[in-house]
């Protein structure tokens, strides 16, 4: 396997056990993602997008195959090793925002830094990122007081505050209206262009997928096309 990509996947299989039945979710995925790339992953429900996302993010181990993320072989990592990888290497953005409801936006961001073992207060340059995200004036509000778009931008800030090698976004505009979707996608593109942030984005929306440098199409647990 070449060492050119920040993500390199070869022959990846993932099978879930549901009761007594084996359900294959990924059936041999090969994928390379370069450092600084913005890759969109599209496909119908059940095509294996989320499973791929979970494996790359270290939320679940692969059944077989080789998965290297920022030089780490995920198939060789223990549960604790994958936890460490989530702490340092990847940042998640979810469709449902997944902010901690009892904390302010500022504290949601601080928790991510705390878990990553960094100072509670981000570096001064992070203020620029907050301005870029347009949430600098909303940091002392709890999620319930923020709009969906604002919540998602706080989630993006939380994901990147620890400077992850890869930002994984799972349907980041799935719960947003058109205007907010566009704003969030613009933010992701800005982060990619200005900071060189590597981004993998799962989406159902072909227009959203256009924001990526390239798009991978999945079906039945396989990558069927890359454009």
């Amino acid at each position, binding site marked *: 396997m070449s060492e050119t990509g920040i993500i390199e996947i070869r022959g990846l299989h993932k099978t879930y056990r549901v009761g007594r039945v084996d359900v294959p979710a990924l059936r041999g995925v090969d994928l390379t993602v370069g450092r600084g790339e913005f890759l969109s992953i599209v496909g119908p429900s059940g095509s294996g997008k989320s499973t791929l996302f979970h494996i790359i993010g270290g939320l679940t181990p692969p059944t077989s195959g080789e998965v290297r993320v920022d030089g780490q072989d995920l198939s060789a990592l223990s549960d604790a090793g994958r*936890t460490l990888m*989530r702490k340092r290497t990847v940042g998640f953005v979810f469709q449902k925002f*997944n902010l901690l409801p009892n904390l302010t936006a500022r504290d949601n961001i601080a*928790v991510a830094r705390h878990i990553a073992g960094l100072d509670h207060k981000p570096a001064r340059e992070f203020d620029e990122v907050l301005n870029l995200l347009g949430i600098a004036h909303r940091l002392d509000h709890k999620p319930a007081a923020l709009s969906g778009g604002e919540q998602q931008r706080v989630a993006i800030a939380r994901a990147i505050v620890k400077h992850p090698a890869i930002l994984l976004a799972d349907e980041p505009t799935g719960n947003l209206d058109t205007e907010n979707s566009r704003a969030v996608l613009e933010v992701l593109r800005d982060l990619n262009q200005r900071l060189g942030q590597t981004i993998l984005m799962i989406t159902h929306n072909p227009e959203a997928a256009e924001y990526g440098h390239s798009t991978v199409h999945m079906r039945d647990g396989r990558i069927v096309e890359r454009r």
Partner: protein
Amino acid sequence: MRSLLSILLIGVPVTLILCLVGLSRGFIEDSQRRARGVGADILIRPKGSSMLSLGYSMPAALVDYFRQQSHVQIATGVLNATVEGVTLGASGVDPKAFAEMSGGFVFRSGGMFQGPDDVIIDDYYADQKKYRPGDKIKMLNHEWRVSGIMESGKLSHIVVPLATMQEVKGESGKVSQIYLKLDNPANTKAVIDALNHDPKLGGDYPIYPMEEYTSLLSVNNIPGLKPFTYVIVGIGVVIGFAVVCLSMYMAVLQRTREIGILKSLGASKPFILRIILTEALMLGAGGTILGILMSYGAYWLIRTLVPASFPMIIVHEWWPIAGAITLVATGLGALYPGFSAAAHDPIEALAYE
């Protein structure tokens, strides 16, 4: 709301423990204070009795015999009766001899017996029963007239004439204990040695120096009190454990998604466990503080309603003990929910609605 309820439920056994300790200590300190208030140097109990046993008596004629012994200045006999269980008793005294020995009762209102059916009560009992001088009261199947209300701290909460007490109890010519006051307290040991070797007494009467008697009034010497305290402490631990276990288990269920979020951010199992334990310990600390506050409430209530029957005190040195017991119980109670939370699969937790 869940947390407040948990704190309240954790606080209840803390209050229970502190009240039990406060009551037992208060009862002992009250007994010691009243025993010292007699002003005697030596206490003689009936044959076969122990320090705290009730229902024993000895001939009142012994009082005169003891009075004739060398170094004995005053001797007086007292006949005791229980009024409300073991916590409240009355004593029959020879007013003249007892006043000489103790320096006399200090009256808040009214005065000494005017007749055989008169009773004097201390301010605690008067407050508890709302009695005033001149009131008629029914006690020991006999009607009495309150002749005076005395300052608490001498012998008993309720004092009646010895002869009437003997008649009421059907123990004419008997006393429960005899107090001796010596010419010099330094002679206490010599007098006790002499009495113990007196062939007329046969060495059968338990004789205590008053200092030793009061020091023997302790939690350790009251039968069953220490095991009872342990049982209450055990109940406290079990309640604290169960409350925290249920409360934190509910919290873990309610926060499954949040646990998934933390895990997606890279939170390790020990990190999640630490959060749950920290919250449980905070509940425990809150419960301890509330329990202490509630013990003051119980103290006020007991001192207002039954100050003579239950002379409760606040025992500050038991605060850290009750706190430690509670924290251990809450810490143990949080372990299962904590491990359960730490073991959550992050994907399933994130999908939890």
